[in-house]
């Protein structure tokens, strides 16, 4: 009905339509390799401007699925707020524990400074993992193989490699109870 009113206007003043050429996956026809086609469709999804998402469509029954997943707007907001509150509790607990530990350490260092300034200075000395003491260098020349590796294995001031990250299930062999020390020369 209204289109008849507008058609005359369109004829006089044609709308400016963006003429940028758009890469469209469906353009290449008759391409031989289906694998290449799949790759192209995966990496460059079809350019759809009339769909809700810029990269592609939702699943076909998205509104139905969303209605099942989200009870209501208020419920969703409540869940979100409850989660943030939970995270805040966890964070506060962790920070409180760290603060207590730090306070312990600070008091110990203050006392040490009063008791023995030399030991205090030594405790505060930063450890450089690259520095080797004289006796280590001399020892390194005499050692070979496994012992040499043991000497270089634990640089002071770095975390050891054997410190494992927690996993969801334990290792099949469990804790390694039989561990034999390799002669490690004491580093100063």
């Amino acid at each position, binding site marked *: 009905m209204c289109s008849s009113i507008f058609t005359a206007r369109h004829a006089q003043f044609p709308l400016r339509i963006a003429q940028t050429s758009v890469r469209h996956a469906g353009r290449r026809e008759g391409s031989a390799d289906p694998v290449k086609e799949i*790759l192209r469709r995966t990496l460059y999804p079809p350019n759809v401007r009339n769909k809700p998402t810029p990269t*592609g469509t939702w699943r076909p*029954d998205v509104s*139905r699925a*969303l209605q099942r997943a989200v009870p209501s707007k208020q419920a969703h907001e409540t869940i979100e707020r409850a989660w943030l509150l939970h995270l805040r509790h966890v964070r506060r607990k962790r920070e409180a524990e760290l603060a207590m530990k730090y*306070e312990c350490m600070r008091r110990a260092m203050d006392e040490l400074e009063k008791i023995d300034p030399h030991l205090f200075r030594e405790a505060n000395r930063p450890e450089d993992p690259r520095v080797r003491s004289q006796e280590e260098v001399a020892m390194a020349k005499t050692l070979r193989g496994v012992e040499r590796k043991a000497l270089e294995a634990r640089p002071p001031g770095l975390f050891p490699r054997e410190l494992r990250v927690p996993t969801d299930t334990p290792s099949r062999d469990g804790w390694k*109870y039989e561990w034999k020390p390799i002669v490690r020369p004491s580093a100063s």
Partner: protein
Amino acid sequence: MSCRTWLSSCRQHGRAASARCRTLATEAAPAQSTSASPPSSVPRPKKPPRAILRTAVILNRAPILTRTPTLFERAYYAYQARLQRALHNPFPYEFYFKPGSLLESKFNLEERRRDRKAFGPGFGADSPDAPGAGVTADDLKKFGQEEEDNTVSRVHASDLNNDVQSLDRKGQRNLYLLLRRREGAEDAWKFPEGPAEQGELLHKAAERDLRSTCGEGMDTWIVSRKPIGLYETRSSVPPTDPTKPPKTCVFFFKAHILAGQVQPLNEAVLDFAWLTKEEIQTRVGEQYWDGVKDMLSGF
């Protein structure tokens, strides 16, 4: 210009220049250096030591397992997974699964089950939009596609029989080493501790003492040169001897055990245990616990 040449000359000459720079910067520096050197012929009277120094080690077995999520966390993760399933951008199925292959059929079957579980009736196999699985579950079993669950249980045998010497017990928690030592008439549970020799650095003393008390069968790593805490005890009777220090200070050092087990060498060490924080509280004396509890991790 002059400033830059001064700096470059400092860098070239190294140590000597740094001393020169220091004297240029501060006037108090030369006064301090002269006071440090002992020029007097009269020997200075030695000050009595302020405290008897002892070192202890808090040997920690870090958690092996991740924490079990709480009910609330599990529910929230499930909710977010459902939202993701409803809203995610298209997945390139044809890239990962060759059309018509057995793997694709298996995946479609599993996806329908997961959809049904997430959204309820009307989804999954009931939905008209679901990808049709070419094969049924029975067909898959015939081809032996069922994966076996090869994982080890999170609960170890030492959890069930409460073996406190085991290092596999309570995988999620932090365990600390406690030794039962005979002190005079009675025995007490304490962290491994020992005296620090004169002039010895404290973290070295801690390492040496740990090795001598608990044997060489443990791969330990002392985290830092700095002590993490202090436990002071004062003798109840004030000492008549003025040179004897009135208090004993035990400096604690944090260490991790990476492998091995305690092999007590001393006859003074009667027993050892790897305990969580609450378990330590039940075994250790009250005053000691007050001094030590802030250094330990709660979980």
